[in-house]
């Protein structure tokens, strides 16, 4: 590129377009965009890639017409900041820090929905909380996710096989995502399930006042994931308590596969009991559920 382009407003604009264009291509090609937005949004990114290329070419055609000001430099610098953030956060999806900030429990008690205020119906009174599962935050596992459940395969965990049903025993646990588990908890009560997620240890949970429960004792941990509609900004935490026959030790933010017996006691405490765990060497391709 002509060196004078660096002192030309249009040249700088063209370089900003180019930087964005190259970054988007790299993130789409590598699948890295899935750390930030829903995979089905990739079409929008392709659209952005095409538009940025066209706009960049248009700016190059205008080189040499306008001098650069400090305001232009600052403006372009601001527009490049998200690229820095993209590379910094790449491969580091939302973790236990975000889980604790976004987690909502009622009356300060993580697992005692019975302590909650009475159910507050919408005008349709369609509340069905007694039939649906609770997230670790005492929320329902998003009744509204029926349609999204169809796309749950975006998470790369195994789906329940339609050909050969799993027995739900210790030897033949049912593979589920946390979303599937929490959407229809009564279907799985007493059965053995296997699921994957990030871990938040008892020690880690104690650091944040958001999560308070007598149920989280040493040797237990919270297995969690985020449910995303569009991007990480709307990610909602889903999680269950994991309790082993023996003391379980996990690393915060590590990925684990957990096999355990699903229990939902009188307080609708969601837990995987008698659990065995194995650490996953890498995070799933899609760290979130959709």
């Amino acid at each position: 590129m002509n060196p004078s382009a660096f002192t030309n407003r249009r040249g700088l604009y063209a370089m900003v377009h180019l930087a964005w264009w190259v970054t988007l291509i790299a993130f789409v090609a590598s699948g890295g965009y899935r750390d930030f937005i829903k995979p089905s949004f990739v079409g929008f990114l392709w659209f952005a890639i095409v538009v940025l290329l066209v706009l960049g070419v248009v700016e190059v055609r205008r080189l040499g017409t306008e001098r650069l000001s400090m305001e232009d430099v600052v403006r372009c610098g601001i527009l490049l900041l998200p690229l820095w953030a993209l590379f910094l956060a790449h491969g580091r999806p939302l973790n236990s820090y975000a889980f604790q900030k976004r987690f909502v429990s009622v009356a300060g008690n993580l697992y005692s929905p019975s302590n909650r205020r009475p159910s507050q119906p919408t005008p349709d009174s369609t509340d069905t909380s007694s039939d649906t599962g609770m997230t670790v935050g005492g929320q329902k596992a998003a009744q509204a996710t029926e349609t999204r459940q169809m796309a749950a395969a975006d998470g790369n965990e195994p789906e329940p096989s339609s050909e050969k049903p799993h027995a739900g025993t210790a030897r033949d646990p049912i593979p589920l995502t946390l979303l599937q588990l929490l959407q229809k908890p009564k279907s799985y009560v007493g059965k053995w399930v296997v699921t994957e997620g990030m871990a938040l240890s008892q020690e880690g949970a104690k650091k944040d006042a958001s999560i308070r429960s007598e149920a989280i004792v040493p040797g237990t941990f919270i297995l969690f994931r985020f449910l995303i509609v569009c991007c990480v900004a709307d990610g909602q935490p889903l999680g269950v308590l994991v309790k082993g026959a023996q003391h379980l030790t996990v690393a915060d933010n590590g990925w684990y596969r957990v096999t355990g017996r699903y229990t939902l006691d009188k307080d609708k405490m969601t837990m995987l009991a008698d659990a065995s765990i194995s650490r996953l060497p890498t995070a799933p391709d899609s760290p979130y559920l959709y």
Partner: protein
Amino acid sequence: MEVVQSRPAKDAATFQALFLLGVAALLLLGSESQAILNLATVFAGIILEALPFMLLGSLAGGIIEVYVSRERLIARLPKKHWQVVLAAASLGMLCPICECAVVPVVRRLLRKGIPLPAAIAFLLGAPLVNPVVGMATAVAYTFSVKVALIRLLAGYLIAVSAGLVVGWIFPADSALVQGVSSDHEDDCGCGHCHSPDHHHHQRLRLVDALRHASGDFFEVGHFLVIGAFIAALCQTLVSRQSFLPLASSPLLAIALMMLLAVGLNICSQADAFIAASFRNIIPFPAQMAFMLLGPMLDLKLVLMFTGVFRKKAIFALAVTVVTLVFLSSYLLNRFLPGAHP
């Protein structure tokens, strides 16, 4: 010729320079901090989601600038302002557009002479009163058509009312920043005349439209980045749990959810799912307040508005919208059966 900057313009430039340096230092020094990484993830996520729509809005703005004649547009508008406002607030039903895309479009429409009340009604109404948002809301509330209708109807009425109120407070172009006012239509800085008579070749007109689109991207895009960063900061620092003890009173809950809507900056297609996740925790009118205010007034939008409106107009718009949303949620709380326990 040397351009002399006004005091507000200098202040804005200083703020932007400080913002750039501050964020760069934060990302550089805190790259191993969990909080900073979370901040970077959310910041990048918001931008990645919004960018295509921002570009779409810029393209639409460029096309409007070059292909839409001001005279023809004005001639086709209803003669009475209130009729234009009513129509503008419902335009989203025909062309669903999100809040990130609507700002560049409104900027160009104002330059073409669309009355301010109608522009504001479109600005507030389009991201909320559209079929995509209606469908998302219904799905989020277990396929409740009633909730979706309440949201769309309340959103429409608020958009119309806010347009009329702000238009009444600010006559003509006094609410607009320099360059957006329709008086400046022939002085957009692109160096080309936009009279349709001067565009003999369609190709040249298309290039002009793209130039304007690129200009809009830079004019409004950096505000989007600043707003997205502040939103990410809120998401990173504020614990949602800390809101709950204050949500025992229905009115306080409405106010808190409005605060949350402004701070979280969640896309209008997704915010209903967040609101629905509060179903057993806070009253329905407070959830509705969250869904009504977010698409109309959040941090990133306020920043983007500064590329279109003067500060006093943004303040008046914000106060009007907040008041109307609070009022409608209060009325919902007061009169709608089943809206609270």
